[in-house]
């Protein structure tokens, strides 16, 4: 790989963690035959929930934090609990203590304590053609598809290495070639609400590692967030195009590509296949964390149709703090608003056996990561059912 003089200096004369970070980028670049490291404007790292990374992760991060400092603005994924209300949540003190140590290690490295899987909702919005290194599959999919920024699907350590060096190997979704669609996916039904998650689940299963070019519908930024999160769960997709909507769709070549169709019947079948619970103990909204508008909308709905089971809302600290009125309404109706954490990386399984959620990504991960049963349905239908 061709390195700039500054990159060579980091590799040979940098601090211990800078040298390790360079080694990681060079090895990963070598595996994918990248020719150089491309400078990045931001990084987003995953691997912050103690539930997910455990003692090995904690140990590594604390050691690394001794001399590792990020070189570009860097945000980090949700933790395993809300550090402000872990006691009320019944989280074991040992878990909370270790979780706090992980948060401190990231802070020491200069990482912004965002604890969010939706950096794009809290002000980190790289522009068209901008190179970044993001982990967290839904954020990757959003950045590439909706914003037109360029990032591969990084893992926690590789995103952290890129943050420390300020660059990432140039291959895959960083290149024009890697952003070309592989399959045209025609959707023959007009989607609303939950349907966007369902389209993502079905397309991801069918496309696998490919890059889908969707046709036949429109959607808001919010809709595409849910679609992308589900798509990146069942498939290893880091990007999609949507005809007439996403910024690079108009110049994406589609001629001669294999095509497939998603019908209303496929969506109904997907909803059924991701539902294995009978009666929900909680309605959980997150995965990814909710936006400001979504939190407010939930507050209005809960006020209109008060639920008889708790409604738990996962969002970022930034959004929670800016919407205390909506938070108050949700809590008055027996619900909770959790910040710093998210649906499947949080410690939830000790309280609820069956979770109802409108998140396709949540429905995909909850059974394996949390050993929970799931009811996947539209938020309005869930609130009616549990009114």
């Amino acid at each position, binding site marked *: 790989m061709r390195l700039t003089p500054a990159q060579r200096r980091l590799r040979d004369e940098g601090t211990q963690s800078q040298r*390790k970070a360079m*080694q*990681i980028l060079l*090895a*990963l670049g*070598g*595996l994918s035959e990248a020719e150089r490291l491309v400078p990045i404007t931001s990084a987003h790292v995953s*691997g912050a929930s103690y539930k*997910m*990374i*455990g*003692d*090995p*992760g904690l*140990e*590594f991060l604390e*050691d690394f934090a001794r001399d590792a400092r990020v070189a570009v603005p860097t945000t980090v994924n949700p933790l395993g609990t809300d550090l402000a209300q872990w006691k009320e949540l019944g989280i074991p003190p040992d878990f909370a203590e270790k979780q706090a140590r992980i948060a401190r290690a990231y802070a020491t490295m200069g990482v912004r304590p965002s604890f969010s899987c939706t950096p794009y909702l809290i002000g980190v919005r790289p522009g068209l053609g901008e190179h970044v290194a993001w982990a967290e599959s839904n954020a990757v999919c959003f950045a590439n598809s909706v914003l037109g920024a360029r990032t591969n699907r990084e*893992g*926690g*350590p*590789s995103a952290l*290495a890129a943050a420390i060096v300020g660059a990432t190997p140039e291959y895959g979704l960083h290149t024009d070639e890697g952003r070309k669609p592989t399959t045209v996916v025609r959707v023959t039904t007009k989607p609303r609400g939950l349907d966007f998650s369902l389209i993502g689940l079905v397309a991801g299963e069918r496309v696998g590692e490919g890059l889908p070019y969707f046709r036949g519908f429109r959607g808001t930024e919010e809709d595409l967030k849910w679609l992308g999160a589900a798509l990146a769960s069942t498939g290893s997709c880091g990007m999609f195009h949507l005809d007439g909507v996403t910024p690079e769709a108009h110049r994406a070549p589609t001629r001669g590509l294999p095509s497939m169709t998603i019908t209303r019947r496929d969506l109904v079948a997907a909803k059924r296949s991701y539902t294995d619970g009978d009666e929900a103990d909680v309605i959980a909204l997150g995965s990814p964390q909710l936006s400001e508008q979504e939190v407010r909308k939930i507050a209005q709905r809960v006020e209109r149709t008060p639920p008889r089971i708790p409604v738990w809302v996962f969002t970022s600290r930034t959004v929670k703090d800016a919407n205390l009125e909506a938070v108050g309404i949700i809590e008055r109706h027996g619900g909770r608003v959790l910040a710093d954490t998210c649906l499947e990386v949080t410690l939830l399984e000790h309280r609820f056996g069956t979770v109802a959620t409108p998140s396709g990504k949540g429905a995909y991960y909850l059974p394996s990561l949390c050993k929970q049963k799931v009811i996947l349905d539209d938020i309005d239908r869930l609130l009616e059912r549990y009114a």
Partner: protein
Amino acid sequence: MKIRGRRIAPGRAAGDALASPVPFSFVGGADPVTGKILDPSTGIAGERLAGSIFAFPHGKGSTVGSYMIYGLAKREVGPAGIVNASAEGIVAVGAILAGIPMVDRIDTAGLRTGDRILLDGDRGTVELPGVRATPVVTAVLRNRGRILIVRRSEKVGSFRGRWSAISGHLEGREDPKTRAIQEVREETGLRGLSFLAAGAPILARNDATMYLVHPFLFDVSSRHIRLDWENVEHRWVRSEELDRFQTVPRLKDVVAAVLR
């Protein structure tokens, strides 16, 4: 013998091999405190990683695996070195974080548990001091979807009576591809080969001898061949049919290395 692969993580290590024939996940695959292998599909469950050269085709599973490797090394129960056939991000990053020398592009199926191994992560090489290397070339000839196999005569030095592709010993520093073309000419009389692919070397073990097989694929325009003294019979077969023949070791893998 010394085999050249690709360097992944720097440093040098020496140890006895623990060889798994199947891909490995460090999450759940090994005990994080003792470094004992837990995954029964490896065939080496119960063995301890400490001090070993751990050889497996490639990593799989959760990215937390990188941190697991780091934790094993920190507790001094991790492997001394890692050898993969094709490295992926989880194990490569883990080895770098942990400071464990690592090399890939080595045919791990040719390594055996207990082999003494010297691994050089700076040069990307793996050395087996106790094993003698016999470099050979194997030419897979293809015509209209079928490949040529020949049955070795009673006059040849090894694997008499077994089915093989066209092959021969590599002498000194000669170019493997040139040697392969030469062997095809001698053993079949065929000329005008069109070269299609060369595969990464396959390690075929026969007791203390390790055949370092350089595989090549050529298209030929005719099925009309003239055998010399080395072979007594020939067939044009589909690659799926190889299982039905008694072949030289790892012929199927050699064919798969060039037929994708």
